[in-house]
């Protein structure tokens, strides 16, 4: 019964998202495009953190890698947009594979330190290699000439770009959901709860951790590829550690124990950001305080706390 109510709520939410451009003010089309993209970014992070139990503080590296890939392919090669998405996923995944190979070998503490360090390495490269990345100005001035797949879409229209984002994020979320419910996903959860026991079963924990990290990187790259045309720039800030903090906070805010938790967290994050930056510049300071309070007192997140309470409530 409760399962069906939740499914109903989810379907209504999806219908409302599809119909958004027809009833919401123009401004909210931008807000919800951002929520969807950052939500995908956060869900890809939570596959690594919430499911596999590895806390990455350098997830923005793959997000930024995706953004740069799309921006540069659009600027220099005039690729159709859809193809740049695949290229972004491939390159971000490759980067995650290489960095992950070095990071998953040691304990959780090492993992957190190393992901932050390598994330800042990628940021430093993007910031300093002016010939290729255009330094702190980033890659701008690119245009989407062709969408690809034989479709003739005017991407410049925010409502159209919103729908493109909705479809891409929807497909990606579905794939990630299937992964999380597959036997592979179950092994990841088991690794988080008890790595020793999983390795006693004869499984190579390191390969599973690396696979999880790479998949997370691939989908972070996809989210990055979507953000570049939205922001109209791919800049080094997309790779900075403060950007890596965002999926961390979104996951904690929504709840790391549920698949949709990071999406709920992303929605709260973006709406709060819009509201708070309207009267103060210290948004990141506020973010730090919220993160600290959530970790100390409210570890399951908003969605997690609500669902746990509601599911256990007697009818």
């Amino acid at each position, binding site marked *: 019964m409760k399962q069906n109510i939740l499914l109903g709520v989810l379907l209504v939410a999806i219908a409302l998202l599809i119909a958004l451009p027809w009833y919401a003010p123009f401004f909210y089309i931008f807000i919800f495009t951002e929520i969807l993209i950052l939500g995908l970014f956060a869900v890809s992070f939570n596959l690594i953190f919430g499911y596999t139990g590895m806390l990455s503080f350098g997830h923005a590296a793959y997000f930024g890698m995706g953004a740069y890939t799309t921006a540069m392919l659009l600027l220099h090669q005039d690729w159709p947009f859809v193809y740049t998405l695949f290229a972004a996923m491939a390159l971000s995944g490759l980067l995650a594979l290489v960095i992950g190979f070095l990071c998953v070998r040691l304990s959780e503490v090492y993992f957190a330190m190393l992901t*932050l360090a390598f994330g800042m390495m990628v940021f*430093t490269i993007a910031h300093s290699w002016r010939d290729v990345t255009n330094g702190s100005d980033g890659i701008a001035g690119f245009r989407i000439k062709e969408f690809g797949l034989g479709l003739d879409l005017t991407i410049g229209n925010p409502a159209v770009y919103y729908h493109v984002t909705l479809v891409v994020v929807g497909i990606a979320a579905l794939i990630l959901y299937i992964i999380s419910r597959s036997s592979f996903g179950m092994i990841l959860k088991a690794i988080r709860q008890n790595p020793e026991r999983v390795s006693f079963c004869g499984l190579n924990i390191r390969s599973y951790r690396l696979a999880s990290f790479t998949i997370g990187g691939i989908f972070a790259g996809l989210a990055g590829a979507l953000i570049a045309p939205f922001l109209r720039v791919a800049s080094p800030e997309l790779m900075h550690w403060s950007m890596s903090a965002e999926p961390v906070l979104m996951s904690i805010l929504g709840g790391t124990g549920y698949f949709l938790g990071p999406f709920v967290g992303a929605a709260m994050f973006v709406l709060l950001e819009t509201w708070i930056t309207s009267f103060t510049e210290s948004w990141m300071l506020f973010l730090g305080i919220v993160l600290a309070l959530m970790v100390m007192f409210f570890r399951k997140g908003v969605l997690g706390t609500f669902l746990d309470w509601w599911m256990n409530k007697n009818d």
Partner: protein
Amino acid sequence: MSGLGPALLNSLEMGLLLFVIAVGLNIVFGVLNIINFAHGALYMLGAYLAYTLMSLAGLSFWVALIIAPLGVAVIAVVIDRLMLRFIYHRDVADSLLLTFAILLIIAESIRSIFGSNIQAVYPPDALQGTVSLLGGSYPVYSLFVIFSGLVILAGLWYLFNRTRVGKIMRAAALDRDMAEALCINTRMVVTGVFAFGAWLAGVGGVIAAPMRTIDPGMGDKIIIESFIVVVIGGLGSFPGALLGALILGAIYGFGGRYFPEFNLLLPFLGMALVLLFKPTGLMGKGANA
């Protein structure tokens, strides 16, 4: 080869400064079993407190060198009592998350108070100018940095090997329950060690202030460097912190001279090499997952 002497002194200067920072990170990890992501932010706090005391309040460098690190330590006690005590008994991920949040709070507070511009403080008169040494002219202040690093190194060695306080800290690091059974107030040890680590970060910040730039990005830079140091040397190892810091210092001192275009990447390459061949660090005792 001319310039070898100055490169050596530069390496030593960088290495000993990095040692002062990284050893604080290591001591806190040893006793509290958490990696303090806010360590770099505390270093930055030390530098900004020194800037405030010197440029705005007009005090001398020597006064700032005493007061600013103590101020950082006091803030660390507040952080420990108000925040960290909630998560000591929890999963390690929570301590990483919380110190990361503290990093955001400190870094953004500094940015909103002082702005994003670069600030500068100058060494005291006694330490200005240059001396000629090892075939090159060399700033007196850099010699002071090397001297301070050596004093702290010797002081820490004495503390841990020859004093009762040091023995209590080591006992708490080895087995906290056992230490408690021996009537050691481990809660106070934990707070004290966290404050002591922050004090070291603050000292590093004040010493670095006249030689490196003071800006809101300085904490990021030093925490990454400290992580590289402890990964190369081995997490939790005192000699490892010294070795790792001297290696990273040498990478900067010599690498910057002979491969300037790869200067930013060399530390990461060094770290990657250590991870490939000795993942627990050169002096690490083994922390495999």
